């Protein structure tokens, strides 16, 4: 258990670090929310100064940071100037939508990556293995930005799938089943793009991990004991490869989150991505920080899940001795 407590502590520390980092960067920013207003001649200096005081923008950094922490504790996650409401209301819905996308994408990409990776490792030498390798490297070379645009263009021109957005206009009137179908139809395109964007990298790492384990001495020994190949692959090789694979899980969550931001913007999926972009253009300081910290929360949560899986899968960690 000590290991998990340590990892939890580490996660909280990192989250705190990210929030400090964001505030430090925000302090460096020359312009701020009121920058546009200043340019407009008809607004007097006094009103701008009053606005600054009201939003607390004129206070020194530590105070601003302390007030932000208080609002996080209260659950507001900071205050949005543009929408004039606590950030939580805005970010909550968006975060859920992003999670919907990324969780399905993580699940699907790992569901495909493990069997494909194991198969590729097993057929390493055959022509099928080489063809598969070439396929993944081409797919790897197509950035998810391009993938999203191509798929969207196909959807728009063929009208097979809804061209972006999360729900169709008449979503409210649909039956629960109808709602689900509509939502899935809308989710299909972004999820496929995100999965195709990260799958090749994952498969390649799974294959590499499997290959490394497959020529380990204890696999030769297992074959030397006459164990059936099925056992050697799934009872000896895969569990031993679990450790490197699980530590890869955290990394895959990071790449998926990054890919989802871009796909959300392109396919106008109302997630954290578009919200962050909007906040940036509006220079809505606390909304930007809220979105960034939330994205880190997801990644850190992903890493914690990885640590949990690692603790369960690898006895060397469970029993503490190195």
């Amino acid at each position, binding site marked *: 258990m000590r290991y998990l407590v340590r990892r939890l502590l580490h996660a909280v520390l990192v989250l705190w670090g990210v929030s400090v980092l964001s505030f430090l960067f925000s302090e460096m920013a020359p312009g701020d929310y009121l920058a546009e207003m200043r340019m407009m001649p008809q607004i007097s200096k006094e009103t701008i100064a009053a606005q600054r005081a009201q939003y607390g923008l004129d206070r020194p950094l530590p105070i601003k940071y302390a007030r932000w922490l208080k609002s996080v504790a209260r659950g507001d996650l900071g205050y949005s100037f543009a929408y004039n409401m606590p950030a939580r209301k805005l970010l909550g819905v968006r975060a859920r939508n992003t999670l919907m996308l990324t969780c399905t994408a993580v699940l699907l990409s790992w569901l495909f990556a493990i069997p494909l990776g194991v198969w590729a490792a097993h057929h390493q030498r055959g022509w099928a293995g080489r063809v598969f390798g070439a396929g993944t490297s081409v797919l790897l070379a197509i950035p998810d930005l391009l993938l999203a645009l191509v798929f969207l263009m196909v959807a728009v021109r063929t009208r097979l799938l809804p061209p972006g957005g999360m729900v169709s206009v008449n979503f409210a009137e649909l039956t629960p089943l109808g709602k689900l179908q509509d939502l899935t139809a809308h989710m299909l395109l972004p999820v496929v793009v995100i999965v195709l964007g990260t799958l090749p990298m994952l498969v390649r790492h799974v294959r590499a991990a499997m290959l490394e384990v497959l020529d380990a*001495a*204890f696999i030769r*020994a297992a074959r*030397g004991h*006459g*164990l059936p190949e099925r056992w050697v692959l799934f009872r000896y090789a895969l569990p031993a490869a679990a450790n490197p694979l699980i530590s890869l899980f955290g990394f895959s969550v990071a790449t998926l989150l990054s890919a989802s931001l871009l796909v959300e913007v392109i396919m106008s999926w109302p997630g954290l991505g578009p919200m962050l972009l909007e906040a940036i253009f509006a220079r809505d300081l606390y909304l930007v920080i809220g979105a960034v910290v939330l994205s880190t929360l997801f990644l850190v949560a992903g890493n914690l899940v990885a640590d949990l899986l690692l603790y369960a899968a690898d*006895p*060397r960690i469970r*029993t503490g001795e190195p």
Partner: protein
Amino acid sequence: MEALLQVRDLHVQYNLEKAGHVSALRGVDFEMTAGQSVGVLGESGCGKSTLATTIPGLLPAGASITRGSVRLRERELVGLEEMELRSIRGAEVELIHQEPALALNPVLRIGAQIADIVRAHMPGDRGSAIRQTQEMLQRVGLPGERFFRAYPHQLSGGQRQRVVIAQALVCRPQLVLADEPTSSLDSTTQSEILSLLQTLRQEMRVSLLLISHDPAVLATLCDRVLVMYAGKIVEQGPLSEVYRRPRHPYTQALLSLVASRQSGNGNVRLPAIPGHPPNLSQLPSGCSFEPRCAERLGACAVREPEEVEEGERRVRCFKYGG
């Protein structure tokens, strides 16, 4: 005593990517009867490990048997189907590797890694497999539940080697091949493991092929000895006779080295063998030991000597005909 293992004119070649073909075994002939313990004496690069991995058909990818036969109880192993070989490995023939630490799967409990072998080769349910495993662990000196449920990283080098021995003997194979089983261990642990091997071998009437570069290790366990040099057996016979009156100059040199070590007359020049070990990719046309031999004759540089048989002893040297 009926014959157990017959090896006839065995040739094995490694094809290395750059260095072309290297012949590790260049015509090896020897036999073993049931219950016998044979030692293979040779220095690194003489092909002794290749011999150990060739018999159960566990040659690495780059190696292949180019000629000769290996018969276990009148059954030809060379060219046997992988499925049939698998049924033999673990049940009839077992190979103990050099590095005990690497031969065990780090994420599986010790008990499971032994019970798997029992279930792979013997009828009966899990319960009987576990009983046999615990009984075997008892015999190798690792009694009780603690060791059964332990993981490899929780055991010392000596204990891990005992587990590997338990794995080898649990299905009562007819022949156990041990490739330098104790070279990576402490000297005190080494003598414990060797005596364990000796007692278990006699109790379970298992034939042993023990491979080592140290004549003293073979002396404690083996009835017969094969001396290997540059991929061939240069001398073989009953161990006590060969050690007392070695015939081949290489055997004489090796044994006199050990003898001077045991006499302990302190800091005087050691009877080292001049020259360098043979380079298997560029072997001389004549006898491979000729460049380092103090008693070389004219014929030695021309062609390889044939094996001359006399009673239970054989030697491959022009001093005795051939």
